[in-house]
């Protein structure tokens, strides 16, 4: 599904290049649940951003399916981005001014989904994550775990084929974290490809593949 070839990412400083990622070669198959691990500064988030097309400032080749991302037109890339990717963040990144319902609706609005269809999609999601009663609350009125559930609901609302999660449980205590990971596992079973970056080894156990990063290089790559 995804093929990365010789990905380099660096910062030009005055006297030398500081590499954040160096020579990353990685192939990810459809249906994988991949975990990126490694200490702070190893390049987990950077790699995730590159895969998620949030960062386009790197050297190397990136194939999504058959297509070379770097050779795509802006519009094509933006459409691909919209249709195939969902994002989940450590800090949830919900829009404070919008209710739970409206937050989940946001990606659908940008995808020009018709109103009635939006309603049914959101109703399904709310039901699935047990948030029907909370649909009119604002993010500030929710616990961290609940906010992250909204974050996930929002990420999957557009039915992406690939879900990217950057430290999704970093701000949560263990019970909540467990709950979130179980949701991930379920999504994975339904066929969604998931890539997560995390510090917590126990989260990796929910996945199918574990990659350890160190100083911008792949240290180990194992199937679980």
């Amino acid at each position: 599904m995804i093929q990365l070839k010789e990905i380099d990412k660096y910062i030009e400083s005055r006297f030398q290049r500081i590499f954040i990622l160096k020579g990353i070669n990685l192939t990810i198959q459809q249906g994988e649940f991949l975990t990126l691990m490694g200490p702070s500064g190893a390049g987990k988030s950077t790699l995730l951003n590159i895969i998620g097309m949030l960062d386009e400032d790197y050297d190397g080749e990136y194939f999504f399916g058959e297509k070379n991302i770097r050779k795509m037109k802006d519009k094509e890339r933006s459409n691909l981005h919209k249709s195939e990717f969902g994002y989940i963040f450590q800090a949830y990144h919900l829009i404070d001014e919008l209710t739970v319902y409206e937050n989940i609706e946001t990606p659908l609005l940008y995808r020009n989904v018709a109103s009635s269809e939006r309603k049914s999609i959101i109703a399904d999601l709310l039901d699935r994550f047990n948030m029907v009663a909370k649909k009119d609350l604002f993010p500030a009125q929710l616990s961290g775990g609940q906010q992250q559930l909204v974050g996930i609901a929002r990420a999957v609302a557009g039915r992406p084929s690939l879900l990217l999660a950057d430290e999704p449980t970093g701000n949560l205590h263990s019970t909540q974290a467990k709950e979130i990971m179980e949701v991930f596992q379920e999504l994975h079973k339904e066929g969604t490809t998931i890539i997560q970056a995390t510090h917590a080894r126990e989260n990796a156990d929910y996945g199918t593949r574990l990659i350890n990063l160190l100083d911008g290089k792949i240290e180990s790559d194992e199937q679980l």
Partner: protein
Amino acid sequence: MLKNYLKIAWRTLLRQRIFSLINVLGLAIGLACFLLLASYVKFEQSYDSFQEDSDRIFRVSQHVRDFGNSAWAGGAVAPMLRKEFGEQLEEIVSLIQINTYLKSVDGINPEESFREDYFFYAEPGFENIAGLKVLQGSLKGAFDDPFSLVLTRSKAKHYFGDENPVGKVLLATGDIAFEVKAVVEDLPANTHMKFDFLSSVSTFKNLNNFPQNADFGSFWWPQTFTYVKVKEGQNAQAISDRIPEINGNYRDPAETKNYQYYLQPIQSIHLQSGFGGEWTAGVDQKTLWIFLSIGGFVLLLACINFINLATARAIRRMKEIGVRKVNGAKRGQLMAQFLAEAFLTNAFALVLGLILVGLAQPIFTSMLDLSFEVPLFSDSSLIGIVLAVWIISSLLAGVFPAFYLSGLRPDVILKNSQISGGKALLRKSLVVFQFALSSLLVFCAGVAYMQHTFLRTSDMGFDHQGLLTVKLGNAAKAQIEPLKSSLEQQSGVVSVNAISNAPGLEGGWNPSVAFRGVEIEEAFSIYVQYVDESYFENLGVEVIAGREFSLDFQDQGEVTEMMRGQFPKMENLGVVVNESAAAIIAQAGQETLGNAVRIYTDENGNLFSDYNGNIVGVVEDYHTQDLKTTIKPTVFLPVKNAAFDGSNILLIRTGNGFDEAQITQLKNAWNQIIPGIPFDYSFLDERIAQNYAQEARTGNLLGAFAILTLLISCLGLLGLSIFTAETKRKEIGIRKVLGASVQGIISQLSKEFIYPVILALLIAFPLGFYLMSQWLEQFATKVNISIGFFLATGMTSLVFAWLTVTWQSWKAATSNPVKSIKSE
């Protein structure tokens, strides 16, 4: 989608209440100020445009050498124009103004007389010049038949109530009966042609024993306002240019050179000040420009604030932008969102601004002493401006978030939840600009206020407190001696003088004046007044040489000849001059006391007055006119001389504790001698203060807008300091954890904004000094712009700015550091 944008815009507004309030309120105030000032300026500029074909109507004004422009023309002008330009001019109309007392014998107040200052004798055709609308009766013959009368609706109501006044009679001073022919609608407020009563010129001829069918032959008498309506297709400028040349055929060539008639468009009359004998006071175009630019600047400041704050606030929403982008928002969609928000916020400001206009309008118009409506919904250019402000400021406020923020990379935005201020230089220069402008206004308002106070309180060279002036009509003049002695005996009265001109207000008249052995260059620079004995003593003006008029001397002269059987020639008058006049004589190396003086008027070689006398005294200079004018050389003649009584007013000096009861006493004493003649009095100091009403208004208005600008600037500063405090919350938290004191943090945060304000002051001061020095040029007596003005202005701006900034800094500095650090 739009619904979603508006929803989030509304929630953002509510969520950041103070911020939104500052933002919306600032723009609303700015807009309201601008609308008020702009509609005021428009009102002033709309004068005399309501008459039909007003662009073809002109007044014949004259330019007098060494004297400036005069609004009046002589009686001979209209006949001359009729003869020479009859083909090109549609209407040629003269009006003669008088003041009189009117009594309605068969009206609602049959006993009482009222003073009327706007009574005119008009020639036929005036109805077409002024666009009169007849409500009752008919104008047929109204301007032809003697003793006919046309009055305005409001005066008809005053004298006759709701009854139809047509056919009824009004009695003027001297029991002259006028028959009401028609009632016309009052002219709108925006005309210089203010009139209450119109009679015919034939009435004037009748009363002055002037042959009915003859034309006036003098360019001096009677003084008229003369209007012409140019026929369609005729070039008014060409006609105007030819008048002086043609005038030369009717008048002594030397005089023609000194008095140049020209056509003045009526729409320009109100906007040109400084015309001698003007019908109603105009307004200086410069003042209007000042007001309009103040309005423009206030609006500009408010817009800058709006943009500045909206931009600052947008930075706080970078996270939202990032999230939206990650969720598939296109740049265009984000732009649309931010622009929609800006337009919505701005719409609130507009509505609030319009409400403010409605609320402030009565205050504003009463400050200006005017009554006009702000034509908010009827004036297309005002609507246009409001819409333009809405669109432009919304676009500018939305552009930064829409174009700059929407283009940022989402991973960068999302990572940096703590945003650096960004564009601080731009924002600080806007603060400098705002405070420079508001300090400038504060400074100007301060100087204008002090100048007004200075004019009101400074020494006029005579004691102008406790003086009462009483108008003298013919009936009172006939009984002047008994009146004087009776009034003098009333308690509280110190002295009574009969004189021609009120001191401190009226300079006198300007005939030709010649001193023996002295060449005078400027023909009209010497004024002549008539005063009686002990006048200067009672006024508190010192006699520095010789003596003033006294009953012990024969100052009244004798009539030696009646020129052309009509005009007296006098010899041997006693003459008193002021220091300035004495200086002219001394400069020519002549002795002042005893010098011969000749006062005369002539036209086309014919003398109309010729008074000769010798100087018997010199008095010190005092302000015969207001303090805006320099003291003019003045010659004083005895009020009661061999030929006539020159008195127009009684000047009564009152003692301490003069009150209403004593006025009643004076009235009674007056009416005992001349029953039925009103005791028409006023306090001189009040009339003098009236002279400076325009300055007072300008000062008040400047002051009010200076405060508003300062307020808007402070609102902007407040918004920015809130913003700075927020973006620096984490920094402040860390500093506090590391041991920074509250004072240290306050001063660090405050400094950031106080320096720009100081810089603004350094820009405002020289500019303000220059501008106000220019403004003060017009006054003969002017206040010194001292260091105090600079200090006061500086303190005001700094204190306001400091309070604004410190409030926020204090809040930031005293907040709990644990909360601010732990934001992620």
